[in-house]
């Protein structure tokens, strides 16, 4: 089956929207399953799209873009994989074999987009100084292009040149590089976490960093459990950081303090 021009157009638009959706409304978000689904509809083979999307989805369950770190772009992978699986009729494995390296290579373009926007940031700075709110606003909105094009262009090109060329490029990737990219993908979240830690008063709350780490690393408590633990500790901290005499008295209606409640009145 040959791909129609309107299919190329729609898939390109889907790729553009894909990254915008992620950073705004989050309807399709960064979920390969859903992009496989939509790409399947466009290609007229929902089932293939779903299977490709589902397979990729299981590879990135719970993987996200924390602190500005990039994740494997299996959304683009799902689009390309589904498209070529339907065109070539070579089945799911072929699609996945194409989608995974494409997704890993696309990471570099995500990084590029995030770099590029710095350009607009500096223009915004300039217009703030001039008090020109209109141009401030406009330049912020321009950010939409680096984002969207970083996905739309490669998808467009890949669909245009045909899968044989794409696969050649992909196959040309040596093993050491794919191993290296995989390892890099594994440790990239480190950057986001380190930045977060720099902007949090980490030293002051280092104890709780350790406790959270212990809970997850030693006790294998899942995230929600750790968040509950953090909540419990936060409430304790909040109550204790109030005036110390308070602890004993609030909500104890049976206990009618004289002197202390008089002080307590101003609290909480």
């Amino acid at each position, binding site marked *: 089956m040959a791909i129609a021009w309107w299919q190329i157009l729609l898939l390109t638009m889907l790729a553009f929207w894909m990254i915008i959706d992620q950073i*705004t409304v*989050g309807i399709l978000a960064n*979920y390969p*399953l*859903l992009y496989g689904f939509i790409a399947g509809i466009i290609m007229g083979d*929902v089932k293939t799209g*779903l299977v490709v*999307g*589902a*397979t990729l*989805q299981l590879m990135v*369950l719970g993987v*996200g873009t*924390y*602190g*500005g770190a990039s994740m494997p772009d299996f959304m683009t992978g799902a689009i390309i994989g589904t498209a070529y699986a339907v065109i070539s009729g070579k089945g799911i494995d072929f699609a996945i074999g194409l989608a995974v390296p494409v997704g890993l290579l696309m990471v570099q373009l995500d990084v590029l987009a995030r*770099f590029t*926007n*710095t350009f*607009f*940031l500096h223009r*915004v700075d300039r217009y*703030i*100084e001039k*008090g020109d709110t209109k141009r401030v606003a406009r*330049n*912020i909105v321009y950010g939409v292009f680096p984002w969207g094009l970083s996905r739309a262009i490669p998808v467009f090109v890949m669909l245009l040149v045909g899968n044989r060329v794409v696969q050649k490029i992909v196959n040309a990737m040596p093993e*050491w*590089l794919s*191993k290296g*990219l*995989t*390892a*890099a*993908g*594994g*440790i*990239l979240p*480190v*950057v986001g*976490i*380190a930045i977060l*830690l*720099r*902007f*949090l008063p*980490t030293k002051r*709350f280092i104890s709780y960093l350790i406790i*959270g*780490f212990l809970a997850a*690393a030693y006790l294998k*408590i899942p*995230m929600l459990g*750790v*968040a509950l*633990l953090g909540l419990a*500790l*936060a409430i304790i901290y909040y109550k204790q*950081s109030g005036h110390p005499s308070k602890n004993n008295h609030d909500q104890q209606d049976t206990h009618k303090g004289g002197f202390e409640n008089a002080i307590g009145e101003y609290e*909480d």
Partner: protein
Amino acid sequence: MPSANTKTEQPVKLTKHDLFQANWRWLWSSQICWNYERMMSTGYLFTMLPTLKKLYKNERDLIEMMKMHNQFFNTNAYVGGFIVGMDMAIEENKGRKAEETVAGLKAGLMGPFAGVGDTIVGVILPTIFGSIGAYMGLKGNPTGAILWLLVNFTVLILRFFLLPLGYSQGEKLIYAAGDKLNRITDAAILLGVTVVGALIPTVVSANVPLVFKTGKVALKAQTVLNQIMPSLVPVALVAFSYWLLGKKRMNSTRLIVLVLILGIVLGAFGIIGKS
């Protein structure tokens, strides 16, 4: 801090429409000009722009506040509207006098909201609905995918309640004792830091696949590392990155390039692998 209680009567009042507009803008702009230098600063500024124009008639004030709002900011976009709401309540009531308070609030809350928000939106929801949807999808059944779309719509609607909620909380805090805001911020930070501590072993996946052989006896490097501590490599990498970020000429842009190269090189040589 006695000044915290001094309310300056400002004639300008924010309306429901203002809140909705901010929400709308936050939704579309928070990450639209995201960059490594100040991440979501522009998104925050864009969101506040109409409010700023309404509150600060004096051009100097307006410029200063725009500058302040274009400082580094980064949080989870889904829950960050809450911070905007608090900010709006405070600025409405105290005007430019609150500049420092607002800057502190933003810096203090963005981390915790990032930690908790990323966990819920980035880990918990996709884990649940992603596994349901993927299981069904593997069979070619779109029900799970459609269910997920509906969930995402619901979440989108819920996001519209967070900013007004933050606004009303912010209003309450203004009348509370001056130090309550600090205590709440501190408690929120504590929660955030705890979650970040747990993110390290959960989100960073790195092990050392090296194996040493002596005759038939093989010794796996990762086994020895695990005897010291679980997730030792992720911890070391985070500590290293944290330390690097404290260096003078290092910034987030450079750090990401460095970690990328480090990962590729160590990965290519088989020293580090994804666990």
